[in-house]
């Protein structure tokens, strides 16, 4: 028996009213939690889909260049030494960083020059599944290469050299069949011939070598800077560059979803808070007599205030607790209905549960502040005479 007994008992006295209030607030909390969880997952999946439209991190060997000029003749930047990244090790290192869950695709590449007759053309060796993972917008006339002996030709190369589906061409001393040509992409892919990475490594006599590696990282949960820093730590002697414009573009979309969820949550929160405030306000009027009794028995204004706030806070905390659990469960159902659940699922966190119930406890207390203050301010006799 202490001061907590009073609000606790009063809550129990009016189960219908308490339950109704609890229900409204719990539903509010539940919708907010569901919205939050769903927006997290949707945002994540959305970003994951966006990664199919290109990488956002590029890893390349540190290149030493020298600006050469001699006798008034400028040769421009010359590469001092052509270095390569070891494919297997580098990919393994990328996949082993602390934030490895955020790495969605790793696409190694090897670039070289080749001659087709009199013309020079860039040849790029790729790992087809990875490459097509980050370039889902690719479309080909014909089909994509299915084995080492086939190449895919960029649209400009195709036009310039007359290479089309079914053509044969000799690159670096080996004959290849063109399986298809790429529709114009507006990117560098239009001016190159793409082939299997292993085939190119063999032709160049550089087994396991790559020129650079493109990485598609998911930045919704953490800043890209963290991922880049971890990659740098894992890959000394390489240059790790984030393509900021792509990152920002993507985050803007993801943030839009989150901000939308936040705005709706705020509306729900204010509505539920107003309900609690209203109910407390009527409770104070209803309970003037109780206040008079308490005040006549030596309860201070602060204590009367505390009793009302505690009562509201208790409902808020309970609603937060139930609402979080219900919202968590509901988010699975919603994601299932929207068929968005694949990949990542809502993550349960005990700390979050506590934080949510504490937060909503505070919200209800805030909503009850004015009514409680009003109640506490009633003079003891005024509260009794008003009967």
């Amino acid at each position, binding site marked *: *028996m*202490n*001061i*907590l*007994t*009073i609000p606790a*008992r*009063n809550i*129990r*006295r009016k189960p219908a009213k308490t339950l109704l209030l609890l229900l409204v607030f719990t539903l509010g909390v539940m919708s907010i939690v569901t919205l939050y969880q769903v927006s997290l997952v949707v945002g994540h999946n959305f970003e994951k889909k966006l990664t199919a439209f290109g990488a956002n991190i590029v890893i390349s060997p540190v290149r030493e260049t020298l600006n050469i000029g001699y006798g008034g003749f400028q040769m421009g930047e010359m590469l001092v030494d052509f270095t390569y990244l070891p494919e297997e090790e580098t990919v393994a290192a990328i996949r082993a960083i602390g934030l490895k869950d955020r790495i969605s695709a790793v696409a190694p590449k090897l670039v070289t020059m080749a001659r087709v007759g009199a013309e020079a053309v860039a040849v790029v060796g790729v790992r087809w599944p990875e490459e097509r993972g980050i370039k889902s917008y690719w479309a080909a006339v014909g089909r994509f290469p299915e084995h080492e002996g086939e190449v895919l030709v960029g649209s400009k190369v195709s036009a310039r050299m007359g290479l089309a589906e079914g053509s044969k061409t000799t690159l670096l001393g080996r004959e290849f069949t063109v399986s298809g040509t790429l529709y114009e992409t507006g990117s560098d892919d239009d001016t190159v011939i793409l082939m299997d990475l292993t085939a190119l490594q063999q032709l160049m006599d550089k087994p396991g070598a790559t020129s650079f590696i493109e990485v598609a990282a998911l930045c919704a949960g953490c800043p890209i800077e963290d991922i880049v820093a971890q990659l740098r730590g894992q890959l000394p002697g390489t240059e790790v560059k984030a393509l900021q414009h792509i990152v920002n573009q993507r985050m803007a979309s993801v943030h839009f979803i989150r901000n939308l969820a936040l705005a709706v949550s705020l509306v729900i929160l204010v509505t539920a808070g107003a309900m609690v405030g209203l109910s407390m306000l009527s409770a104070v009027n209803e309970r003037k*007599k*109780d206040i*008079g*009794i*308490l*005040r*006549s*028995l*030596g*309860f*201070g*204004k602060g*204590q009367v205030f505390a009793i009302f706030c505690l009562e509201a806070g208790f409902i808020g905390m309970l609603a937060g607790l139930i609402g979080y659990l219900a919202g968590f469960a509901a988010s699975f159902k919603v994601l299932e209905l929207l068929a968005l659940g694949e990949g990542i699922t809502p993550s349960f966190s005990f700390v979050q549960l506590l934080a949510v119930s504490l937060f909503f406890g505070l919200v209800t207390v805030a909503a009850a502040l004015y009514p409680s203050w009003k109640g506490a301010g009633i*003079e*003891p*006799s*005024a509260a*009794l*005479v008003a*009967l």
Partner: protein
Amino acid sequence: MLTAKNIVKNYAVDGKVVPVLKGVSLSIAEGEFVSVVGRSGSGKTTLLHVLATLIQPDGGELHFGDHDLRRLPEKKLNILRQADFSVIFQFHHLLPYLTVLENSLLSCMHRMKPVPKEAVERAYHCLGRVGLADKADRLPGNLSGGEQQRVAIARALVKSSKVIFADEPTGSLDKATGEQIMELLAGLHQDGMSLVMVTHEPEYAKLSERTVVIEDGMTKR
């Protein structure tokens, strides 16, 4: 012990000042039983509330022992209300959601600190004295009016108050029950408590050592 001098109290009704107490003086000695009588609307309840510090008068002086009650800080007043003063209203003195036992201990429940065991034992004892030992765990809702009144008396007993203010304690009770309550109140007086009782019944006023008549906002000699 409790002295009121020239107490003035006005109410504002529709912007007009309505005088209710126009200079009431009254003094209650330690252990004295004073009854207050007067017509309905004469200001008896107002006077009782002024004496019990439940309302601030607009003028006059109010002393309890060495304390100047009109200038006592709120904190000290609360301590006074917790222990020394007890008010027994005509009705509505119990919180309907607390048990009889909890209601009798209410003045000890203003802190986070649990009510001490001794106080709980004392409360059981006092409830026994007013004949409610077997109803300690009931809610006020299923008690009769007389029983509710007895809980309020038990509460004053638990506090071992110095002064008890009772506002028509038998007003809403039938004759037999009213007599029981009066017996209990007289018992408190016998224990050495001061008792100020507003009543309509001349018969009960006779039980007191002194009767004060309020008429037209003044005490009548």
